[in-house]
């Protein structure tokens, strides 16, 4: 795959008009994630009820890959149980960083498959996922 083929239409459009973007008025969990190498910087805000992710928003700055990945992630994780979400995160992470398995049964997220071949960009694809994981474990303190 050529590098430019990374930038498929789906990715470009999620980059341009990300889903679930912004800071919600209320949320129960949240986390902040950096990629110090390129300056990507995202926030994830969750509303978790009865072990289900009722609502998820993200906010921040980053490249098209990272933004599209965050946008696609929020779409696909909403209304899922924590344990489902955790296994999806693991699947995504194992594929991207360990080249294990594939993304086929993760729906639209599979448009990110090609990123794996560009080590420089893997962190772009995974930053929001890492942050998601952290958010699940981080309830709002007051």
């Amino acid at each position, binding site marked *: 795959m050529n590098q*430019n083929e990374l930038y498929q239409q789906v990715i*470009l459009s999620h980059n341009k008009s990300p889903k679930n973007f912004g800071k919600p008025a209320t949320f129960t969990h949240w986390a902040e994630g950096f990629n110090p190498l*390129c*300056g990507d910087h995202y926030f994830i805000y969750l509303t978790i009820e009865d072990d289900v992710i009722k609502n998820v928003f993200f906010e921040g*700055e980053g*490249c*098209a890959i990272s933004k599209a990945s965050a946008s696609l992630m929020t779409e696909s994780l909403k209304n899922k149980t924590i344990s489902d979400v955790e296994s999806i995160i693991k699947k995504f992470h194992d594929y991207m960083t360990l080249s294990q398995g594939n993304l086929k049964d993760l729906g639209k997220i599979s448009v990110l498959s090609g990123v794996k071949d560009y080590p*420089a960009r893997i962190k772009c694809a995974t930053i929001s996922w890492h942050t998601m994981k952290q958010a699940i474990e981080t309830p709002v303190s007051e």
Partner: protein
Amino acid sequence: MDKNILAKIREDFPILGTEVNGYSLVYLDNAATTLKPKYVIDRLSKHYLYETSNIHRGVHFLSQQATTYFEEVRDKVKSYLHGDSTWETIFTKGTTGAINFVAQSFGSIFNSGDEVIISQMEHHSNIVPWQMLRDRKNIVLKVAQMDERGILDLEHLESLITEKTKLVSITYLSNALGTINPVDKIVKIAHSKNIPVLIDAAQAIAHITIDVKKLDIDFIAFSAHKMFGPTGVGVLYAKKQLLEKMPPIEGGGDMIASVRFDKTIYNTIPYCFEAGTPDIAGVIALGVAIDYINSIGLKNIEEYEHKLLQYATQKLSEIKNLRVVGTSPNKSSVISFVLDGIHPHDVGSLLDSKGIAVRTGHHCAQPVMEFFKIPATTRASISFYNTKEDIDRLADGILYVQSIFE
């Protein structure tokens, strides 16, 4: 520099003949690290092939020889910076190592409440060591502002100085913006209050003639790898008079005069600041890098790079939805820019797909990004082996990136 000379110079850098992603390499990431001329590489090889030895402590021929070659480089540094015996060359592992050493050693004689002044356009290497000192010794870190062109506000800098100010530490040439700071004026302001000045010359060293004597610089730090030398070596060139007040920070071989468990006596300057086996081959190769720059002539380099930067600025300013970040009239070698609606990381990736190496990100200068309210820039940084064709390839590349994101 005419075409023929340029062509000959480019032959000194074998990497310029390679291909990346099917395109001949356009290397515009010189501010991150410069390429290495074959003379430097050959010198490294020669050392390891025929001269390998540890230095200082050996009486045998190879050790003597390596010691002589190693020590000669202190003088080469002196000449390159136009210093004299009032200064001393201390080898470090890089600019970062040199600045940290000053923060730890010179900083150890600061008191709670003492102040260090840096600027808003510093590299993290000239920020974090002072923050660490702040946390350790409760000093105050003050930041001189710049304006929206990326020009340092000298009046603001001067206004920050108090009786508690112990050091002014400023970059000569901003790696994120390309701004050349008026070191002469900065030193005058600081010296008028008897405050020493540290100059971060990591970028300036390969682009600007530096005269420490005329400028009266107290400490100056730079890295070999940004001046056509190897990675792993840097220099702190500093006034002896200040070094004499500074304690060693690292202990070990070579830095001692005598060791007993109850009491250890340190060696003399500069050796007391160079604990352990240094990067012998790297230092010797730095000497060759200096010779190489001298053989081309820094004046020629400055002149050529100035024209090339002007050409690049002109060329890029013709591109729509492109904004240059850092627009001081006094710039060198660096051009940072942002494209509307396209993140620099994507720009960098797509330029790379065309064989063009630029850097994207915060360039270890996050406060600069914060100032301009941008997450990152794309940075093209030139050296004397770059050509107008490189700039043309860059401009075409940018248009290609924009076409994808249309």
